[in-house]
């Protein structure tokens, strides 16, 4: 699929079979968050999931990570059924989940504490990542002393620092400005090409999905189901200026077309009049 594929794939395959999710405790009105989803991700594949807000993307990711129990269906990672939280993964959660009682660096070093990884080495790597993301000065600050985008980048560093074989990222660039976002996107692609982890990437940006993925899963609005599974056949590394290429536009249009058809977009501004 791309010319770096054979350099050694650290990733593992993921199988999702008829997975759905209904929220709601025993005696309350249940809420269907996800219709049945079936999806097969190859080792080292970079798969993006796009879909309207609230369609169940985060829910799906948490189920794959073993953090949430699926209501129906089976999930397996590297051939083993997911019945408990996966541990050899890197996850960037949508709401960052930084521990407010740890400094930025300590948040990243949580891996070393919990997984008993070599501190020195992880710290080295963390420092490189802090530098890469221009966060050197944030290292010893507590989360509440940091800006929104800085917190997001720290969560990103934490998901990457232990070089996991499976990466899951839930809108990891949502709070970043346009250019930092481009930068981080390229950094991520480079990292992926070097180590080839399996990536499950949730994003709101169609451009980002096309810019990064081998495959894009398009989901319908809530309750979500898979409406398209698009293979992106573009050269890697993909240039920043990707937006100008005609094939790129075709992919974007195909996705937008789904959204429009599914009614994500509706009539013109009709905010209520003030009384």
């Amino acid at each position, binding site marked *: 699929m791309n010319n770096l594929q054979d350099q050694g794939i650290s990733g593992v395959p993921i199988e999702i079979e008829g997975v759905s*999710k*209904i*929220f*709601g*405790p*025993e005696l309350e009105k*249940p809420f269907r968050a996800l219709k049945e989803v079936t999806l097969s991700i190859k080792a080292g594949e970079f798969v993006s999931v796009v879909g309207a807000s609230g369609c169940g993307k985060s829910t799906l990711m948490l189920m794959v990570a*073993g*953090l*949430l*129990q699926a*209501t129906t269906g089976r999930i397996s990672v590297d051939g083993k059924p997911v*019945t*408990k*939280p996966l*541990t050899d993964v890197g996850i960037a959660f949508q709401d960052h989940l930084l521990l407010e009682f740890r400094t930025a660096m300590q948040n990243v070093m949580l891996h070393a504490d919990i997984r008993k990884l070599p501190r020195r080495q992880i710290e080295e790597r963390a420092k490189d990542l802090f530098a890469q993301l221009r966060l050197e000065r944030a290292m010893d600050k507590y989360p*509440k002393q940091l800006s929104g985008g800085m917190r997001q980048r720290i969560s990103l560093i934490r998901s990457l620092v232990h070089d996991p074989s499976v990466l899951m990222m839930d809108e990891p660039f949502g709070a970043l400005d346009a250019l930092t976002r481009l930068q981080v996107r390229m950094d991520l692609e480079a990292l992926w090409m070097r180590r080839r982890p399996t990536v499950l990437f949730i994003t709101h940006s169609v451009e980002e999905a096309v810019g990064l993925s081998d495959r894009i899963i398009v989901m319908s609005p809530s309750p979500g189901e898979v409406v398209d599974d698009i293979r992106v056949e573009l050269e890697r590394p993909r240039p920043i200026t990707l937006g100008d290429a005609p094939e790129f536009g075709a992919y974007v249009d195909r996705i937008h077309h789904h959204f429009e058809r599914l009614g994500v977009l509706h009539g013109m501004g009709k905010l209520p009049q003030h009384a």
Partner: protein
Amino acid sequence: MDSNAPATAVVQDDVAPRRRNQTRYLIGQFLWNMIPPMTFVAIVGLWAVSVKVFEVPSYLLPAPDAVFRLLIAEAPMLWANTKVTLLEILLGFGLTILLAIPLGLVIALSPLAKQVLYPPAMLLQLVPKIAMAPLFLVWFGFGIESKVILTLLMTFFPLLIASISGFQILDTRLLYLTRSMGANTWQTFRYLRVPAALPVIFSGIKTSATIAATAAIVAEFVGANEGLGYVLLRGTSTMNMELTFAVLVILTVIGLAINYAVELTEWALAPWQRKSK
């Protein structure tokens, strides 16, 4: 919790099992709810058996059935005294709730108030009030006042500390929200601080509630002609251990009832927390 246990490792409050068998589910629920009473029965059973087997004399530990018989036989007298003690508890503990929570708020909010009020409040707490109880009697009289005051003083500080901590725990960024709406102190209190502090304050209320019964009893030890503390001491001073234990049982039931009432209130006041229970 164990990383080898398969199913339980998944975060529990998100699990939504499909219930194929409603009846079986209800039976399960019932058994689950029976655990506390069964524990209780087990404890009483153990008590009864050991008293029998080791021939424990009644002045050391009376048999539960003897205590139970006395509870029945003396029910009217016990009930009359229970009402007295209950009133003291409710007044003293009620005052605590009315005073400690607002004071906790003031101390949490104003560094000056903390600097001025906290040390004397703590001083008052640190003075062993049980030792002071006889003095209270002399100062405030033989009536219900001295009991209410002692109950107030003994239950006050746990709730005060919890309230301070509850009100301080608030994510200060949330204040941005209410401030930008022009909330006054009272509104910030009502709409933001109180609900945010609720779990911690309720933990303080529970602590205080468990102390309340003890406090009223102690006050009655020191000087009373009625109330459970009076009955209890009469029991001990006449070697009537069945009576003493009957009072202990009633006090425990009162404590349980208060605790239950507090939990019910919390459940009603904090609907957003219900599921995590």
